[in-house]
């Protein structure tokens, strides 16, 4: 397997606050990697750094072996073109109907005509189990679950090689969470895409991850397969996946408990 995305010693600070403190992570081609971590652990900053929305202070981020840190936006156009992204709240464009949202990239970048773009939107919506009756609706009139699914349709419409998911199930009920997890799994398998998901939802981790990485205080402190995740006796990992209030992980800057084996990490 070749490495599709490689992060090496990535640092990012905002003023005095060090958010990423040397992130090292590799994602192989076709692999589904899930990065877990509590609020404020740096997951979103890491994702935005890979997407080129933030520039790391130090370190290297390679996509297909090409260094992207310091690369001008225009120069990474071909990299951007192979990336799809599902934002936490969908980030659908309010001013455009659903079909123009889904086919946005094809219309704006490939100059696709409206008839073909509508057909593309119908196909993409079908993949996320939505019907053509949604095409002309405004995003404002969609429910939370539909919002996510239309966002997913937009992310996969251009058949990208890499797809990022930012908290894909946050705010959804358990049934819709399961629906989204299955859709992600199915779409990814169908496309053969490499994916990176950031979440703190363990149901999603078990449903979609080939490999899991735990980000804590700006560093990847554990990574391994889903089987290794369940078998691990890592105290940080155990506290996180079991949702325990007490353990070595500091919550919101306050350490709830200092586990005796915390030094082992």
């Amino acid at each position, binding site marked *: 397997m070749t490495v599709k995305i490689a992060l090496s010693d990535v640092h990012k600070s905002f003023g005095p606050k060090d958010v990423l403190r040397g992130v090292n992570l590799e994602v192989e081609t076709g692999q589904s990697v899930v990065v877990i971590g509590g609020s404020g652990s740096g997951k979103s900053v890491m994702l935005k750094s890979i997407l080129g929305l933030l520039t790391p202070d130090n370190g290297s981020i390679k996509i297909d072996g090409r260094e992207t840190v310091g690369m001008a936006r225009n120069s990474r156009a071909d990299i951007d073109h192979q990336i*799809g992204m599902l934002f936490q709240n969908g980030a659908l464009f309010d001013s455009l109907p659903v079909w123009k949202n889904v086919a946005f990239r094809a219309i704006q970048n490939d100059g696709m005509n409206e008839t073909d773009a509508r057909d593309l939107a119908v196909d993409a919506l079908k993949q996320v189990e939505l019907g053509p009756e949604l095409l002309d609706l405004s995003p404002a009139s969609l429910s939370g679950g539909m919002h996510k699914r239309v966002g997913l349709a937009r992310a996969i419409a251009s058949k990208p090689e890499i797809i990022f998911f930012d908290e894909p199930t946050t705010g959804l009920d358990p049934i819709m969470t399961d629906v989204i997890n299955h859709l992600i799994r199915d779409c990814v398998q169908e496309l053969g895409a490499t994916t990176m998901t950031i979440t703190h939802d363990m149901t999603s981790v078990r449903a979609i991850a080939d490999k899991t990485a735990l980000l804590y205080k700006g560093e990847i402190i554990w990574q391994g397969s889903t089987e290794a995740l369940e078998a691990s006796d890592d105290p940080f990992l155990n506290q996180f996946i079991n949702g325990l209030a007490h353990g070595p992980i500091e919550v919101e800057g306050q350490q709830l408990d200092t586990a005796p084996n915390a030094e082992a990490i």
Partner: protein
Amino acid sequence: MNFLATIGEFFLAFFAQTGRLSVFVGQTLAAMLRPPIYFRIIGQQIIRIGYFSLPVVALTSFFTGGALAIQIYYGGNQFNSEAIVSSIVALGITRELGPVLGGLMVAGRVSAAIAAEIGTMRVTEQIDALTTLSTNPHKYLVAPRVIAATLCMPILALIADIIGIFGGFVVGTQSFGFNAAIYVQRTINFLTVDDVTSGLIKAAVFGFIIAMMGCYNGYYSKGGAQGVGRATTNAVVSASILILAANYLMTSLLFSS
């Protein structure tokens, strides 16, 4: 020591803001000149910024022209007022009040709307989504609004000129009994092309400022709904102050020579 630190922080923040605004203006100018140019969005913005601002600009200029006529009539020599009211109303409206008041009214309406729209897009990650969909936000969001406002404001100012002069005419002929034909003749005789064009040049600059302040404040808004509210207020306040400052500067340049 704390007092000096406060002054230092203020100036550092001021220069940082000025630098960021300069970069933003540079990026916008580059986006306006390089393809792709989104003509359809420019058209939509011309309707939103220009067409929908017509009522507010028309009403403002009508009442301003009328009030100006009353002030000149009572403030000047009432026995020779027929000669000066028409000329000063025309001069005041075309050179100053048409573009400036029109600009301030459009700043209140359009700058706020642009800042709120782009600010909401920022806090809901729609601008990040644009970038990940290989679309430059400066080209797609900022440039069309700036082009539309810069094109629309001179037209709005011209309409404000006509309606403002008409407001003075209505007050002059209906309240003070001026002869309508003489009023119109004196207005035409007194006005020069330079009076009108200077106002239109100012209006184009005001249009650029209005859209730029709306886009800039919206683009860098943060902190959810409160941040968008702050961006909206800042857009209107900064656009209004810059319009008045730019007006003074351009008046000095255009009329001192």
